[in-house]
């Protein structure tokens, strides 16, 4: 299939439709409005539902309803809106419902700004709402990956009965690139647990996150974490770039990884042995490549559009065997390749920038 030129946000929307999603609920917020606009145009033409909800809270609960009925469903928002969805994300986790959620991050906290950010890393990788739970968090770094990880997200959500989230940023959402929409989609699994009516032929199904007997609630939590262990074993995704002989390793995802790749190439031209580890799943975090790299690099540099959030996972994964420094911009600013290159040069000299 030929490639088409699309915005990242549009690529997510079209990929969701290709993945079999026929229900979208959202509330306007910059910088992800193209997703809703695209769905508003497309859904009526393919027998789907586009509904602009009265709030982010209502939208995520409409998602809860469609997920209960066993169908593929999504919502999208940006940082402040995701905070409002936090309640629903926790209930979805407690009820073991599959859902697909997109966060095109903007600068925070509070109303913040509308320019790109990665400062919802903690919120998304640690669950986002109350209680013990995780979401599968996918971090695309190109428009092509926006599309591919959307399909993957729907599949993983169904497979593990949980929320899969795309954690993008304003740059990813707005930038245009050629993208192939020749995407392979696996058949959704059977969902005998769904509330589709008993037809008087089976015991009633109940979708629920309430469990008042502590012994039982404990069992449910433990069982959920057993499932998470399987995901941590089987679903970790990352890219290693020029890491074979690296003395310095950069950790970066999303737009920060694109900037960092340029800096790595420049540094290599200068003779500095530097590589990049790019987590694609932020949860489960790719611990293995960092543990391996900690055996041969003298420093990690975490390049982030936040005050330093993923850096904590880099330290944990590398068990602090070598220093981990931060190279960042925040508030909607993006590190330049020059800034990253300077950090690489400083790290190679053994100093901190």
């Amino acid at each position, binding site marked *: 299939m030929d490639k088409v030129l699309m915005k990242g946000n549009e690529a997510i929307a079209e990929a969701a439709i290709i993945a079999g999603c026929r229900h979208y609920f959202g509330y306007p917020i910059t910088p992800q409005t193209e997703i809703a606009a695209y769905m508003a145009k497309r859904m009526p033409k393919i027998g789907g539902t586009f*509904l602009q909800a009265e709030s982010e809270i209502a939208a995520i609960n409409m998602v809860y309803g469609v997920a209960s009925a066993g169908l593929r469903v999504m919502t999208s928002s940006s940082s402040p809106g995701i905070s409002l969805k936090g309640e629903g994300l926790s209930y979805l986790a407690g009820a073991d419902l599959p859902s697909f959620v997109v966060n095109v991050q903007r600068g925070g906290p509070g109303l913040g700004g509308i320019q790109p950010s990665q400062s919802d890393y903690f919120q998304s990788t640690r669950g986002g709402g109350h209680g013990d739970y995780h979401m599968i968090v996918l971090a695309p770094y190109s428009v092509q990956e926006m599309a591919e990880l959307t399909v993957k997200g729907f599949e993983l959500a169904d497979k593990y009965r949980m929320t899969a989230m795309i954690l993008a940023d304003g740059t990813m959402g707005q930038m245009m690139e050629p993208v192939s929409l020749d995407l392979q989609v696996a058949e959704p699994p059977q969902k005998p647990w769904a*509330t589709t009516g008993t037809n008087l032929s089976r015991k009633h199904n*109940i979708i629920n996150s309430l469990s008042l007997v502590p012994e039982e609630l404990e069992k449910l939590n433990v069982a959920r974490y057993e499932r998470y262990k399987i995901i941590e074993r089987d679903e970790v995704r990352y890219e290693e770039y020029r890491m074979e002989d690296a003395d310095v390793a950069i950790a970066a995802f999303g737009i920060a990884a694109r900037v960092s790749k340029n800096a790595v190439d420049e540094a290599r031209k200068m003779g500095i042995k530097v590589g990049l580890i790019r987590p694609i799943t932020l949860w489960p975090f790719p611990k293995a490549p960092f543990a391996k790299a900690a055996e041969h690099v003298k420093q990690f540099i975490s390049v982030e559009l936040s005050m330093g959030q993923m850096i904590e996972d880099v330290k944990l994964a590398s068990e602090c065997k070598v220093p981990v420094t931060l190279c960042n911009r925040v508030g909607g600013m993006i590190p330049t390749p020059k800034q990253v290159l300077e950090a690489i040069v400083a790290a190679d000299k053994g100093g901190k920038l």
Partner: protein
Amino acid sequence: MIVFDKPHALIDVPLHYCPGCTHGIVHRLVAEVMDELGIEGKTIGIAPVGCSVMAYDYFNCDMIEAAHGRAPAVATGVKRADPTKVVFTYQGDGDLASIGMAETVHAAARNENITVIFINNAIYGMTGGQMAPTSLIGQVTQTSPYGRDPKLCGYPIKVCEMLRELDGPEYLERVTVNSVAHVRAAKKAIKKAFQNQLDGKGFSLVEVLSSCPTNWGMTPQNALKWIDEKMIPVYPLGVYKDRSATQEGGNK
């Protein structure tokens, strides 16, 4: 000959409700209506947070437990997923008229084709008797220990009167279940609210004035009297909107 039986749509288990609480009556009416319309097998009920949070253990149809106040949004999702299914929410006054007011108003404004059973007992029961959005002026509760003072916490919210002003909703009626005659009228209203959905008419809400002897601090008998003497004057019974009947030139 069977002269009295439990409805099939109600599971034969002990209910957890307090003695004298009218939730049991309303559960039964909803279940009888499901039986009579033959819809149990294609009905999905949405339980709220509040005293009826465990309604999913009582109704025999498929059930979903929603977050506090979000039942109309969840119901919207379920109904949009398959419009041939029958979807109802069962919500109390804190759930529907306080934390979930936005979801209620917008589901009504969209004329979402669902049925809403709204239990108004003027108090938060499950958490131990706090002031509700529908608590009466002067009503003593745990969080209005000197009586509800409108200067401090405003006035009771009249849900049917408020929703009536919207163009969206199809049918709004307020009933109660404190006497045999009232129970019969309530059943008729609930049946109509489900029949409307089957007919594709849209958002149908039945508000049921209910008793809470435990948190009102009354005997069950006095609680039923309190509905007549105190609640009905503030919340008059009757049909607040019946669009099809009005459009067809019927009496209203």
